[in-house]
């Protein structure tokens, strides 16, 4: 039985392969970018407020900082308590065009030993977890120039 692929959160990313992008919104008046998307009102206190339009964020950025999680995080993070805990890295990435820092998990197999602050990374589609019916999808950061 094949599982349905469903984003773990609606409206934050779309596309496949090289076309995969995080989706933010941009204020039509002041050009401020919001991720996670802000659909209600521009949060720039100096802006009279414009309409908020969806925009894909840059695919590549540079590492602001990184860490990892050597212990199993509590719920609502989903993990299988029957399996040994496998640490994953977390990367905060500065997107130069949007002037924003976005946190995300590193692609599987990428450890803190592979990373340095300032290194270029790109956003790639990833899997958060799977249950019987559904593959819950997410975004991952992966150093550029690393194999598929």
């Amino acid at each position, binding site marked *: 039985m094949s599982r349905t692929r469903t984003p*773990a*959160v609606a409206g934050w990313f779309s596309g496949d392969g090289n076309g995969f992008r995080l989706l933010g919104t941009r*204020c039509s008046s*002041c*050009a*401020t*970018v*919001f*991720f*996670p998307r802000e659909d209600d009102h521009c*949060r*720039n*206190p*100096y*802006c009279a407020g414009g309409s908020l339009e969806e925009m894909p964020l840059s695919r590549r950025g540079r590492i*602001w*900082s*990184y*860490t*990892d*999680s*050597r*212990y199993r*995080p*509590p*719920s*609502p*993070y*989903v*993990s299988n308590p029957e399996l040994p805990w496998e640490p*994953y890295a*977390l990367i*905060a990435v500065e997107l130069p*065009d*949007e*002037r*924003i*820092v*976005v*946190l*995300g*998990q590193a692609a599987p197999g990428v450890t*803190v030993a592979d990373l*340095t*602050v*300032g290194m270029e990374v790109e956003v790639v589609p990833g899997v*958060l977890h799977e249950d019987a019916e559904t593959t819950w999808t*997410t975004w991952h950061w992966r150093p550029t120039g690393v194999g598929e």
Partner: protein
Amino acid sequence: MTRDVAVLGAGMHPWGKWGRPFVEYGTAAARAALTDADVEWRDVGSIVGADTVRGGYPGYVAGATFAKALGRQGARVASVYAACASGAQAIAAARAQILAGLAEVVLVVGADAAPKGFFRPAGGERPDDPDWLRFRLLGATNPAYFGLYARRRMAVHGDTPEDFALVKVKNAAMGALNPYARYRKRVTAEEVSASAVVADPLRLLDICATSDGGAALVLSSIDFAQRHGVPRPVRIRAVSTVTPRFPNTVLDLPDIATDSAVAVAAAGETFRASITRAAYEEAGIGPEDLSLAEVYDLSTALELQWYEDLGLCGAGEGAKLLREGVTAPGGRIPVNASGGLASFGEAVPAQAIAQVCELTWQLRGAAGDRQVAGARVGISANQGLFGHGSSVVAVR
């Protein structure tokens, strides 16, 4: 007219993992503060509680719960939730009531029975809550954020894990002298570096634990203190409770991303620095006037950040200040003479109040073996989830 309020009494319940209801810790701390103030509970005009949930965080109950436990006597009541800044905002609410003439004597109480291990958000599917989302999508615990800040300091300022360990060594040595602290054992740098990595580059002994605990203060008008026979009380001179300014470009708990600086350039000053600047401005003092500081050392690396945000040194010079002993006992400005969160652990609604208890005892010259000689001016500083920050200046 003075804008000061008096600290008539300070009290704590010892911190630890006691496994009892938070009401018990808060009530014990409140009774200790009332005894210290020589004030009867039935004569207190107002009670302000820093919120918790029964058995976790964040909060729904506090002021009314403590009022009931102490014996309801018709006092004005308020409860405050502001994450880690809850205690300081409770102090701010009490102070505002006193300065507005709504109450002469106010009891401020915070207590918690914290969960074991990582803090976690309340249950259910709640994708409109940033705190729920960061766990659900990223498994990003509080220590993960502390790890990001620590790694960033290493990359930008050249700090080392050995620098971070020295913060723990310093704070554990002071906590060993504090009867209210949970951890009362000295720690060596070797013990820090031998402890397990929790969130690279931080280890178990770099990160504060979750604890049970309670803290309380009795605040009053200066007039009341003087009529009550306390001519020179410790005075609260400033309480800063500012929000960040847009765009906040440093990733903060519990956010998944920063504000974008594409339309408005980021201010030169970080959120943490703005918290303490607001306190300095309100108090009319500067970092050069301080005798001591109590800061939120949620991690060892974060304490070094606070040195810079308090203006004790320039950006990137925190580790140097530590190595020179400036922030150690006997140094120019001892930081976390109480032992800090390294020695207490987090009992969220209590800890900002506990910081002011320590300032009070230090400014009275009543801090025993950990006394900072000649202490006249103290500051506390903290930061909580969702853009809460606070800083209290106390003087004598």
